[in-house]
């Protein structure tokens, strides 16, 4: 069955530290891949997406993600986290871009 897994429910990092949020998927072919962020009281905002081509994609707010076909992963990274990055992060996957299957989310806490 098709699935999206975000193994980490909560992650805590210190401000200025690097961040990696994991996303694994189970799909038959290379799907469309997205990362969204949901800040408190805000709607979901697209950080970045991968459809094809270069497997390292750059997004907004200094985020990047790398598609690894062999590992069926699409992990989100940021070299230096800011306090304003504290939010809920969702990985989304779909065989078509309009019918996305979202992970359960990873809640990021940033400490001083």
């Amino acid at each position, binding site marked *: 069955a098709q699935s*999206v897994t*975000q193994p980490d429910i909560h992650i805590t990092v210190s401000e200025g530290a690097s961040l990696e949020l994991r996303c694994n998927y189970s799909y038959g072919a290379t799907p*469309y891949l997205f990362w*969204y962020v949901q800040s408190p009281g*805000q*709607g*979901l*905002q*697209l950080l970045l*997406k991968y*459809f094809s081509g270069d497997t390292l994609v750059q997004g907004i707010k200094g985020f990047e993600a790398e598609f690894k076909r062999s590992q069926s992963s699409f992990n989100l990274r940021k070299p230096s986290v800011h306090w304003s990055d504290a939010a809920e992060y*969702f990985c*989304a996957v*779909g065989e*078509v*871009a*309009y*019918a*996305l*299957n*979202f*992970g*359960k*989310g990873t809640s990021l806490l940033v400490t001083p």
Partner: protein
Amino acid sequence: GAGVSQSPSNKVTEKGKDVELRCDPISGHTALYWYRQSLGQGLEFLIYFQGNSAPDKSGLPSDRFSAERTGGSVSTLTIQRTQQEDSAVYLCASSLVGTGGQETQYFGPGTRLLVL
């Protein structure tokens, strides 16, 4: 410009009642999507509208759920005979187009539904 708006922001209803949730997409966006976010779960795709094409209803969990999009703009998601398990945040999104894989979905703030 204005983003996707949804109303009401919160809705409390009694089990067995019908509810209607409204979504106003971004002006000019031809594609509209409904998702459900249940407590502790990821977002679940419900339905997708693209222009005048027949909607993709493959994500609707039961025949109690229906949605329409009037005039290619505003959409209403209707849940009949609500059950407690319908309690969730219902999110609407819109995009410029729905095919080609290049569209970006812009999400509304959601409607938080509580069925007592």
